[in-house]
């Protein structure tokens, strides 16, 4: 069974006078443990696809199955529960909460999952060690470099051990050195079994993936395997 299946997935944005078709009847599947890079020019629908896969946006028609569940049939609350236990997000602009420290930002998904304090703190500390962020754990996001912020964002995305990570241009705001660092992190997570879907403009970032999907005007125009196992 695939981790993700979309069948004729369509998304239309209705503006005041115009309507924009963002995704045109897309059929797209991802197996568990895969690392997929979604590429294409600006406005081709990459981020829209990612948002729908992450259940933070609705689609107009078609079906979406996540781990065998028809997401279209789920209520908002059920989608939230499904999301928080199974999906981690990494954004281009990090989207860390400025009022929370590094530790608290990473801790947040576990709080929403209702973890008790002791295991929660253990898990966060473990991750901080792994991400080499322990010495920065009490800092606020504005006190960190871009690379450090994205490492925190990745840590927050994986803290609950989700089987799937959705990354939207994770290196877009980073210099090449820090970008490399983040990509290696994602690569190692994938090697540990986490499925990753990453939207990117960067060929270099895409080279870390196993499969590259090219989108153009809301359609998948090309799909190819990137590297061998």
């Amino acid at each position, binding site marked *: 069974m695939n981790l993700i299946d979309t069948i004729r997935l369509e998304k239309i944005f209705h*503006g*005041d006078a115009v309507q924009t078709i963002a995704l045109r009847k897309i059929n797209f599947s991802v197996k568990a443990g895969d690392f997929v890079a979604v590429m294409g020019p600006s406005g081709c629908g990459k981020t829209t696809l990612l*948002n729908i896969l*992450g259940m*933070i*946006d*609705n689609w107009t028609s078609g079906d979406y199955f996540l781990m065998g569940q028809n997401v279209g049939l789920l209520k908002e*609350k059920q989608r*939230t*529960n499904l*999301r*928080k*236990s199974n999906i981690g*997000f990494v*954004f281009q602009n990090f*989207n*860390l*909460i*400025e*009022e*929370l420290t590094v530790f*608290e930002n990473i801790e*947040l*998904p576990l*709080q*929403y*999952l209702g973890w008790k304090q002791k295991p929660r703190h253990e898990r966060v500390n473990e991750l901080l060690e792994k991400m080499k962020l322990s010495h920065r754990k009490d800092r606020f996001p504005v006190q960190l470099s871009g690379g450090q912020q994205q490492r925190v964002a990745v840590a*927050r995305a994986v803290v609950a051990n989700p089987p799937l990570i959705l990354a939207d241009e994770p290196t877009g705001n980073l210099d090449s050195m820090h970008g490399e660092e983040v990509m290696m992190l994602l690569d190692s997570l994938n090697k540990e079994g986490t499925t990753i879907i990453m939207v990117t403009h960067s060929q270099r970032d895409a080279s870390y993936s196993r499969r590259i999907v090219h989108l153009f005007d809301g359609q998948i125009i090309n799909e190819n395997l990137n590297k061998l196992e």
Partner: protein
Amino acid sequence: MTGNYFKIGIRLLLRQKGYTLLNIIGLTLGIVVFIFILLYLENEIRYDKKWIDKDNTYRITSRFTSEEKHENIALTPFRLANDLKSNFPEVKEATNLFFTDPSDANDVATISWKERKFEVPDISLCDENFFNVFDYPFLEGHPDSALLNANSIVISSEVAAEIFQGQLALGQSLQTSLRNYTVTGVIDQSAHPSHLNFDALVSVNSLPDEQKTMLERDHFWMTCYTYIQLVDTTDVLDFSYRFNEFQRKGERIYLQDEKLDIEGNLSYHLEPVSQIHFNTALLYDSPTNVDLSNLIIFGIIAAFILLTASINYINLATARSIKRSREIGVRKVLGASRIQLVVQYITESFIITSISFLMALAAVEWLTPQYNKLLGKKLNLFDSLFSSDDPAFVVLLIVLVIGLSVFGGGFPAFMLNRYKPTQMLQGNTLSTEKKQLSTPGIRHLLVTVQYVVSIGMIMSTLIVYAQLSFLNNHELGFNKENVLVVNVPQDTVSRRLIPELIKKTELLETVMGVCATQNVPGFTAGKLLFQSDTNAAGSMQTINYFRVGPQFFSLLEIPLVSGSYFNELSGSDTSTNYILNEAAVDFLGLDSAIGTPFDQVGRSGGKIVGVVSNFNSSSLHRNVEPLVFILSEANPRYIMIKCEDGQRDQVQPDINSLWAEFGTKSGLHFISLEEKLESLYRGDTKLLGLFFYFSLFVVFISSLGLYGLSSFLIQQRTREIGIRRVLGGSQNQLILMLSKGYLRLVLFSGLITIPLVYYLMNHWLDGFAYQISLHAGFFVVAILIALLIAFTTVLIRSFKITKEQPAVSLKAQ
């Protein structure tokens, strides 16, 4: 998780100090005003609610009905209490308290103790049962025996503190100008807010026997408040009917015995003691009574002020949600449920509300002395907060904090919860979404509500001010200027010296005229039963009377319509001559008044010798009423002195020097007639003060809100402003563009306020016999004031941003 909410909330508020400060100041001011109004209302509601057996305690009121007219008065004859207790087993207790005009602030008695003199504003008489009905706590003495003996006096703890300053008061001897008293009790009045107004109570047994006998006989001498306590099972309606029948029988016998024939009918009614404070319809009633509808208006004002303050918070929070949308979006993506987000917002709101609330409590405590001065009350925040027998106040305040937190935090949370995480994550970049998130429609509605309250308060203040100015400048029908009123001490030594003092005063160069009198304009003496010969049957009428000296009319420049003044008469027995005002002549239906036989019931040989123009003998709340003037030179209560222009301040020390020459112990009290008349409108002046300060608060709170809101929204438009400037927009055009939306809202708020204020203030004006008419000027001026304040508020912010170089503005995100 809860700790986390607090931690984040506090950090967030600390990071945005300006925003937090604006919210806290606005909310604190709102809560301060709310608590002040609440304290006032709570105090009013507590009146007469704590008496022992209050549910079975009633005051008896009287109603005179004659032809079409009827008059409700709070007074009854002295004998009524005794009649009821002796003849009706259901009357468990009955007592009476003598009427002294408590609105007459100058009517003070001087009490001497060990050569020192103290002024006690209100000493009243009552019988020995008084404390069985009104169970004041006794700090000294015992209620059962306190008023048994003649010349015993019970004083309030305030009076005791002033005179004895911590020493034991019980058994001490106090002298007034009338007699010597022994202190038999000290009571604590603070525990029982009540319509009863007295500083000291004297046993009725102190009255001379002759006077007491007259009081015990008379069925129509309305001189006391009568209170009764009924047994629990009494059918009040049935009892009222039976005791009225009983009284009517007694009155008939009395009239036959006295050979009197009174036109009209006298009936009695029972009024629950707990409702007395809210009855303003009776004559001779407590001046501290309040109109219940005024209290309701104050309650509504309090609620609206609080609403105004919390709207600031909501408006700023929803406006700020544009900025916070990304954070909330992230939280949603990470799995936060709706409830968790609502709790997050409510926690932040709770932090701000709690800080504001604590600051408000401190501010209220600090400002309470000034507020008490304004209201003439003794309100105490901590007494109300920690009242052991009635936790309603503190419960209400706790509900207030929770309510404000939920309302203030829940509303923006609810607004944000409507949006999808993607919309929120893009909130700063997609203009259409941003507009949605900023919810301008609801914010406009909330700003409109704020300005309806603000403009309403400004309009009301203008109207109250105009009405009081109108009363001050109203032609009263007599000349009140340069008239000094001196209280005459009532001891025999002083009384004997008064004629001599008057003679010496008349010789002062600074004095134009002197008149000894028992009554001065503005203060009612009461009613007497008069008989006019023109009416064949039922010729008796109760009419207001003034006992005045011969110079009364000339001193006050009251014009004569026909006949003569008292001082123009010579030879005949002046005690049987009466002067009437025009209203009394109309009331009696006399075609030709002069020479008409007219007298007090029980006397004969009197006639009407003069008719004077109508003048306002009482407050302008009431119309001119029929009034009979009785010449009375003996035992005056006051000396009125007409001073030369600008000499008033000189006359007082001159008279004091003359009085000192006599070497008497009693002192003289001076007050100008103008000041004395102003005291009639003390309640209205208080209202003006309250409206004025509340208006200031509300307008300031609203302006604060508008400043915060406009700052925030103008900041969001920085880039747009830069583009407009590049395209040629002038600073003035841009300021106008930024302000006009708000000004339109203020104008709209003003227009919808007009009918509301028109209705409410007309209701208030109906309480005056003489009133201004509400014209468009009040409304236009109030709206203009509000527009000016709103424009200035927005201008401060927009001026700064429109002055910025376009290159800088264009860089804004």
